[in-house]
């Protein structure tokens, strides 16, 4: 792996053990294509993906963060010199891997519509008001225990053109890197009991057994009296097995 090694065939130079990131069975993963979500028809690849073994490029990943994120990025309700309109909420939880291990010091990027269901984006022009004090962008780092927390307003539902009278349930977009390339996740958090779930193909594209995992839980303990409601959402990224290589030197690392 050093410069001088290049060009020579060197077995197992990746170290004594490489993590191998586990994959959820297909029946519990969101499929790439879903007939009810029309935009998938021309965008989702049709061919079966080729298995890619996890080598150095795959077991590593960008560890972005601290220098990019300020404390103000965790409060979406205070922007451009004033307070956002809407129901103030705290969204918090833990980022874990599937072994229950916390994912510390990890960047969490979020974006959302305002309380009226309008995004501050050139493509979003449905007749709901923009809020001069809401830009819909948040960034936080998980702490040493994988915990994250931000303050925002509850996003509104919004219409879209997928089918007649289609509405997206209220949701917050999340983007996470975890610590390695296979853990990369872009997803959406929903709110409990939303009556719009059944007609939303982006929600129903999630296999039924996994839909609960996309919905935050109201947490009375974490509400702040006279201030904010609270929703908890734990996010689970793919876990890894340390797979020992069969080298004599390093035979005891497993």
């Amino acid at each position, binding site marked *: *792996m*050093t*410069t001088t090694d290049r*060009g*020579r065939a060197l*077995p*197992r130079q990746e*170290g004594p053990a*490489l993590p191998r*990131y*586990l994959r*959820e069975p297909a029946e*519990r993963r*969101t499929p*790439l*294509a*879903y007939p009810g*979500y029309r*935009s*998938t*028809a*021309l*965008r*989702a690849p*049709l061919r079966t*993906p*080729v298995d890619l*073994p996890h*080598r*150095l*490029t*795959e077991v*590593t*990943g*960008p*560890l*972005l963060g601290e220098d990019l994120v300020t404390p103000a990025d965790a409060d979406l309700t205070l922007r451009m010199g004033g307070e956002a309109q809407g129901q103030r909420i705290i969204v918090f939880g833990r980022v874990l891997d*599937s*072994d*229950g291990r916390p994912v510390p010091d990890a960047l969490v990027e979020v*974006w959302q519509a305002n309380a009226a269901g309008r995004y501050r984006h050139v493509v*979003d022009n449905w007749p709901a008001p923009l809020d001069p004090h809401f*830009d819909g962008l948040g960034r936080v780092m998980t702490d040493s225990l994988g915990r994250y927390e931000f303050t925002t307003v509850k996003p509104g539902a919004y219409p879209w053109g997928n089918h007649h009278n289609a509405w997206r349930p209220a949701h917050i*977009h999340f983007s996470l890197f975890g*610590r390695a*390339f296979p853990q*990369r*996740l872009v*997803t959406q958090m929903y709110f409990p009991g939303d009556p719009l779930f059944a007609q939303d193909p982006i929600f129903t594209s999630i296999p039924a*057994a996994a839909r609960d*995992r*996309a919905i935050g839980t109201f*947490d009375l303990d974490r509400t702040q009296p006279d201030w904010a409601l609270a929703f*908890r959402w*734990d*996010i*689970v990224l*793919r*876990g890894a097995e340390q797979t020992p290589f069969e080298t004599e030197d390093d035979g005891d690392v*497993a």
Partner: protein
Amino acid sequence: MSSDYVSPQVRGAVEGNDRRPGTPRRGSGFLDEPLRLGLTPSATVGPYLAIGLTWPDGPFAVAEGTAGAVWLRGRVTDGNGDLVPDAMIETWQVDPDGHVDHPDAPPGPGPVPGFRGFGRSSTAEPAGEYGILTLKPGRVPDGQGGLQAPHVDVSVFARGLLDRVVTRIYFGDEPEANAEDVVLRSLPEADRQTLIATPTQDGYRLDIVLQGDRETVFFAV
């Protein structure tokens, strides 16, 4: 958060493994064991990704002005051959010496100064086209006693993709390395060509075809 709280993720954990205090589930260590906690399902990045995912230095996997830096560019098209102007490309790679700054990388020197290894580009401007400034990666072991050809791992996100899709960029001016690469070797010639970027004046070009006859090879990672 209250200590007795059990989240739906933990409640829904797969039964059958031993339970150790303080952790939801423990596995036996075999790869075919069920996952202990159910994964959070992916969702589309949607049309408004620019709000949350734009960084001023996003396209720069290496600092501007770095000697030897190259632009990786290409178009993203859909099953009709139309440009996809609302996608996002992310790249991840080692540096020219095969180094990367990460706790799971083998011990040794870090990457060259100013090398982040990660790039993120929208396809909004010019419409349908991505651009990442980076250094050409070095070769790293393939786990079978050989070396992989220089490659960049790529994620594509877009409205209409309910999960990211993953591909690789290889380099057209590395014919010998490409011929030895275990991943490329496993593919039919026509498929292999969908992964190999063409040298240009300032770097390399590789178009990404999401769907259709000339569909890019995508990987399950």
